[in-house]
């Protein structure tokens, strides 16, 4: 599908008129959604175009739409010459697409001419020509000044008229004549076994050939369109899926024109506070695409519903595409966790769309979703789950579908959340390879089994353009809602649920024991300290006592000395001591001896 995207991007670049001078073939816009982009503006103006395909692939419808849109949108009157369906049948068939053929005929914008030839009633003898057809066509064209002509299954003539040689010559003349008339003609033809058309009409109509195809894969049919040939112009050569909806044909990959969406840096919350915290504190970017994968029963729908719920509470509109549960079931289930969606539905903030994936093919689903989104214009779109939708097509198709859906949503700045169911035991990352690269953010919900229980955990695997947590969080669902808690990560691994609780209890006990031990040691130490202090007090008092004693001794010694001196002096005086006199005499003698 990538190639289609590129092809389309190329076509889109071709569309602007600036680069095309008079050398470019003039185009006749079909007005068919997507076809003009593929062909670079429409069918070659003034030339015949062949639309071929097997029965039931939409040839008549496509050619009729070309005519009706020409008459209504581009002011080109047209002639529809039908060889298979009567006017009544055609009118009824086109009415189902909302085209009012009767009114257009009444207003002179379209002329319908049913050519009835009954092979069983016709005999041929000798040469003939198709002048009757020319006259009728010429008259029809001239009567309203038609610019467009559709010949629906001209090949019916081969079945009705004999002498193929004459017929071929006449058809060649017819195409020449149409060119000379300057009308843009569309000729439809049945697909042949080996050639494009059963009777080799592509030989004569060599300007533009479009091949329609209706393929069935896995019991689901998808229509494809391919421009086989477009003389004198580049064109998308890929096969493009197309579908026939209520409002005509749309050739699809027109939304995948390029990667140039407007980008918002606004962030929107998920409705789960802790999840916002994991995403840099502010949630996802507006207009981003979010993938939510998980095994069965991990709570994907709950997260998705919470996201939509949060958007509605902000006053935004949310669209919930559910491919597994009915809206009422979702509303009831969310009620059980305290999320009330019904009032939001009543206030037209939330809209559900439920359908079985096998209801129709991928393309039809896509078209329906586009239509619903265009009608409701939501800010947030939930697809729950995208995987069951993808099962409706091949890998290639489904990736293309998701690409186009994301492109479409991003183009409208719609934030999208896709849940994806992974089978238990699958390598999670691997099974989502196809989708994950298209997504801006990827949340993974997982169940961890252990201790006889399963616990939900959530990771943020990727979140483009924002710092995000690499941590595992335990995902809790209770009747109060959802919450994320830190899972225990430690030497014994990641613990969740009761194991986490047990570990927490163990930790509390250990903490308590530690506290008690500390208290005991504290008590002991303080007791020891008290003892020491008492010891210190004893010693100090002892010290003081000895101090006092010492001072007393000192005092005693001083008194005794004084008493002794006094006694000695007294004694000397009593003994009439001359010691002092003798000493003074000796001093005087030595002084005399020194003097000359």
């Amino acid at each position: 599908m990538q190639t289609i995207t590129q092809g389309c991007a190329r076509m889109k670049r071709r569309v602007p008129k600036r680069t095309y001078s008079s050398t470019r073939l003039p185009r006749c816009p079909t007005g068919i959604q997507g076809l003009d982009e593929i062909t670079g503006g429409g069918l070659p103006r003034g030339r015949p175009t062949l639309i071929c395909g097997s029965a039931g692939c939409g040839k008549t419808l496509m050619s009729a739409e070309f005519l009706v849109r020409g008459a209504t949108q581009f002011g080109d009157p047209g002639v529809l010459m039908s060889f298979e369906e009567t006017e009544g049948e055609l009118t009824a068939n086109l009415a189902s697409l909302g085209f009012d053929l009767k009114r257009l005929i009444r207003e002179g914008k379209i002329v319908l001419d049913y050519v009835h030839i009954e092979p069983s009633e016709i005999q041929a003898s000798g040469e003939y020509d198709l002048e009757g057809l020319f006259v009728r066509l010429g008259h029809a064209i001239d009567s309203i000044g038609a610019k467009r002509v559709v010949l629906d299954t001209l090949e019916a003539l081969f079945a009705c008229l004999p002498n193929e040689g004459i017929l071929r010559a006449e058809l060649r003349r017819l195409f020449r004549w149409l060119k000379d008339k300057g009308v843009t003609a569309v000729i439809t033809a049945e697909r042949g076994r080996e050639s494009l058309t059963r009777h080799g009409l592509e030989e004569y109509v060599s300007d533009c050939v479009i091949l329609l195809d209706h393929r069935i894969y896995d019991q689901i049919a998808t229509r494809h369109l391919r421009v086989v040939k477009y003389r004198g112009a580049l064109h998308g050569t890929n096969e493009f899926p197309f579908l026939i909806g209520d409002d005509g044909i749309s050739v699809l990959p027109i939304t995948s024109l390029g990667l140039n969406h407007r980008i918002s840096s606004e962030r929107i919350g998920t409705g789960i506070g802790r999840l916002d915290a994991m995403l840099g504190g502010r949630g996802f970017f507006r207009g981003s695409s979010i993938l939510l994968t998980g095994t069965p029963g991990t709570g994907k729908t709950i997260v998705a519903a919470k996201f939509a719920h949060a958007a509605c509470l902000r006053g935004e509109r949310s669209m919930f595409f559910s491919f597994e549960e009915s809206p009422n079931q979702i509303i009831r289930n969310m009620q059980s966790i305290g999320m009330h969606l019904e009032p939001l539905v009543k206030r037209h903030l939330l809209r559900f769309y439920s359908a079985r994936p096998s209801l129709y093919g991928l393309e039809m689903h896509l078209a329906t979703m586009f239509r619903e989104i265009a009608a409701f214009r939501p800010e947030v779109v939930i697809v729950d789950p995208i995987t069951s939708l993808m099962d409706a097509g091949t890998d290639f198709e489904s990736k293309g579908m998701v690409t186009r859906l994301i492109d479409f949503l991003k183009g409208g700045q719609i934030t999208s959340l896709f849940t994806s169911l992974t089978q238990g035991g699958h390598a999670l990352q691997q099974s989502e390879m196809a989708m994950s690269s298209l997504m801006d953010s990827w949340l993974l919900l997982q169940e961890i089994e252990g201790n006889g229980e399963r616990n939900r955990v959530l990771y943020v695997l990727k979140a483009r353009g924002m710092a995000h947590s690499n941590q595992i969080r335990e995902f809790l669902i209770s009747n109060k809602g959802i919450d994320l808690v830190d899972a225990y990560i430690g030497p014994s691994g990641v613990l969740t649920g009761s194991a986490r609780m047990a570990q927490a209890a163990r930790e509390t006990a250990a903490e308590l024991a530690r506290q008690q031990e500390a208290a005991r040691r504290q008590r002991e130490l303080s007791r020891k300290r008290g003892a020491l202090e008492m010891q210190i007090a004893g010693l100090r008092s002892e010290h003081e006592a000895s101090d006092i004693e010492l001072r007393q001794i000192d005092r005693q010694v001083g008194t005794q000395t004084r008493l002794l001196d006094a006694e000695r002096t007294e004694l000397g005086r009593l003994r009439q001591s001359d010691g002092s006199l003798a000493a003074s005499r000796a001093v005087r003698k030595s002084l005399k001896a020194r003097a000359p």
Partner: protein
Amino acid sequence: MKVVKSSSPCPAASGKSAKVWRFHLYVSGRTSKSLAAYANLKSICERSMLGGYRITVIDIAERPKVAKADQVCATPMVIRRNPRPIRTVIGTLSDPDLVLVGLDIASAI
């Protein structure tokens, strides 16, 4: 402009007077094919009719609406309008046997 060329030789004496064969010959202009078809048809009628016959030549180039109304596609084309049912033969009617079978005249002879 309806160019009517009627040919009704001796209004049959045999009791089947009611049976008048009516043919519409649709041509586009006075081409060699148109003329040949008329001549051939006329000679076949002359040779095989028991009762009366009438050939109406209609030039669709002049009356395109008739071409649509009468579902003319290939020209020249002759339609047996009477007696019913309608029978159609296209071409220059160069093979009388095929024309007799195609217009179911053979049974009347």
